[in-house]
């Protein structure tokens, strides 16, 4: 471990704390929200900022101590590519299994049959 200068120390620490905070909020949301579809929103949204904060912290830390570091950006690219796809697959599975939805969910589909696998 290398000692950081004052400002870099503060910057890296606060980025890590912000990242950790959003990851925590995402997990709390997973436990607190009422039904499957609503729960899906928490991990797909909040964790992107959670991982983003940690990645930014890592970029700053390695750029200050060693040489300029960019390859953390690859993690961001992979995350943005995979998060919506996994959310989509989970939502699809929940939809076709017809999981219980919270009572005040409004179904505004004109022809719900058009979205089902059943023939």
């Amino acid at each position, binding site marked *: 471990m290398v000692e950081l200068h004052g400002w870099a120390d503060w910057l890296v620490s606060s980025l890590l704390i912000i990242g950790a905070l959003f990851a925590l909020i995402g997990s709390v*949301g997973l436990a607190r929200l009422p039904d499957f579809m609503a729960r899906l929103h928490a991990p797909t*949204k909040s964790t992107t*900022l959670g991982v983003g904060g940690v990645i930014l912290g890592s970029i700053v830390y390695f750029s200050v101590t060693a040489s300029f570091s960019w*390859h953390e950006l*690859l993690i961001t690219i992979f995350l943005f590519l995979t998060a919506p*796809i996994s959310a989509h697959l989970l939502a699809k599975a929940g939809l076709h299994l017809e999981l219980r939805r*919270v009572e005040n969910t409004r179904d505004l589909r004109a022809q719900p049959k*058009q979205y089902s696998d059943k023939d």
Partner: protein
Amino acid sequence: MNKLLPAPFLSLFLLVFWLLLQNTVSAGLIVLGIILAILIPLYTNRGRDFPATIHKPFKAIEYFILLMVDILISNLNIAAIILLPSRRIKPALIEYPLDIVGEVPITVLASTISLTPGTITAEIRRDGRALMIHALNVDDHEKLIASIKQRYEMRLKEIFKC
């Protein structure tokens, strides 16, 4: 496009990807990266089922920046919904009619909807002309549909010309 560069944006992406993986920039690595960026699309191009051309690259970059900002807002939004105990959520399943056509533009739009505030794409209608969206907290679904239309779909329509 032409014979040597069947997919110019894929080539550019591969070159940037290669340099990011190496985490350094030197002349030798750039030459090797350019060779890979030309050879890999030449080999994989016949396997591409869904050709898509970006007609306006600058609009695409603008779209990417807009998306970043919206992802930030969406994170704060969801965090507020989770943390404020009193707020009752009003979820809804919404049918979103599509104006754009083609596999790639629709996929990009669906992913955008999943990444932005309070909405997740769950399914595409059998005829492929509408998406089903689950919204976490919505009062006026007409307004939500209109905002997605003019904020993202119009831009994608311009970028992909579809």
